[in-house]
C-alpha cells in the first residue's frame, strides 16, 4: 500500500535556524508530491508541489523541497525560519484513480519556532 512517512513528530527551533523536515514515500511508480502547512486552528494550505522536471521545487514563504527518486524522499527545507512558521507540516502523495485522486498524508510534523 502506498504510504507516506514523516520522521520527525515535533521539531523545536530558534528563529533564524535552518529547517529540514523529512518525508519518505513508498510507491514505485510516478508520484505527485505535496507539502501542506496547517497554522494553529486553520485549514491546510499548499506550500509546494512536485510533478516532474526539476527535482528542486520552490514554494511559498521561502520553502523548498527536493525530490530524490533513489531515496523515495521529498524533504522540506527553509534556510532561516521565523516565529510565524510555527505550524503543523504535512507531506502527501497523490494516488490517481480513473476519475480523480486520493491524497495520502504523512503523520505530520509539528514545528515550534522560539522567538
Amino acid at each position, binding site marked *: 500500500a502506498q504510504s507516506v512517512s514523516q520522521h520527525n513528530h515535533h521539531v523545536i527551533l530558534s528563529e533564524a535556524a535552518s529547517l529540514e523536515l523529512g518525508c519518505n514515500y513508498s510507491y514505485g511508480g510516478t508520484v505527485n508530491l505535496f507539502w501542506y502547512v496547517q497554522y494553529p486552528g486553520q*485549514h491546510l*494550505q499548499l506550500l509546494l508541489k512536485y510533478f516532474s522536471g526539476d527535482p528542486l521545487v520552490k514554494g511559498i514563504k521561502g520553502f523548498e523541497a527536493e525530490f530524490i527518486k533513489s531515496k523515495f524522499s521529498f524533504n522540506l527545507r527553509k534556510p532561516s525560519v521565523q516565529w510565524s512558521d510555527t505550524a503543523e507540516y*504535512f507531506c502527501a502523495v497523490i494516488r490517481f484513480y480513473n*476519475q*480523480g485522486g486520493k*491524497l495520502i498524508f504523512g503523520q505530520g510534523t509539528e514545528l515550534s519556532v522560539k522567538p
Partner: protein
Amino acid sequence: DTAVSQTPKYLVTQMGNDKSIKCEQNLGHDTMYWYKQDSKKFLKIMFSYNNKELIINETVPNRFSPKSPDKAHLNLHINSLELGDSAVYFCASSQAASNYGYTFGSGTRLTVV
C-alpha cells in the same frame, strides 16, 4: 469569496444525536472530498465524489453518509454520534485528473459529549 466553505465551524453535540456538516465550493471543481483529522492531527480520507458520483469510500462506519446534490456541494450526515467521532472534518475539492492538489475548507470541529 471563500473557495471551499464549510458550515458549521464548530459543532458540539451529545452522543446518539444525528448531525450534518455542509460543504460548498465555488472553484468549478468536479471532485470533492471529506477528510477526518483526529486528535493526533492525522488526516485520513473518508469519501470522494466526482460529478455527484461516489468514487472513494474508505472504511468508514455506515453511520456516516455523504450526499452530493450537485458537483459544487458535498454534505456529510452522521447518525448516532459516538465519542470517537470527535475530530476536525475537512472538506476539499479538486479538478479530476489535475495535478494541482486540493483546496481545503477551514474545517468543522466536531465535539461529541
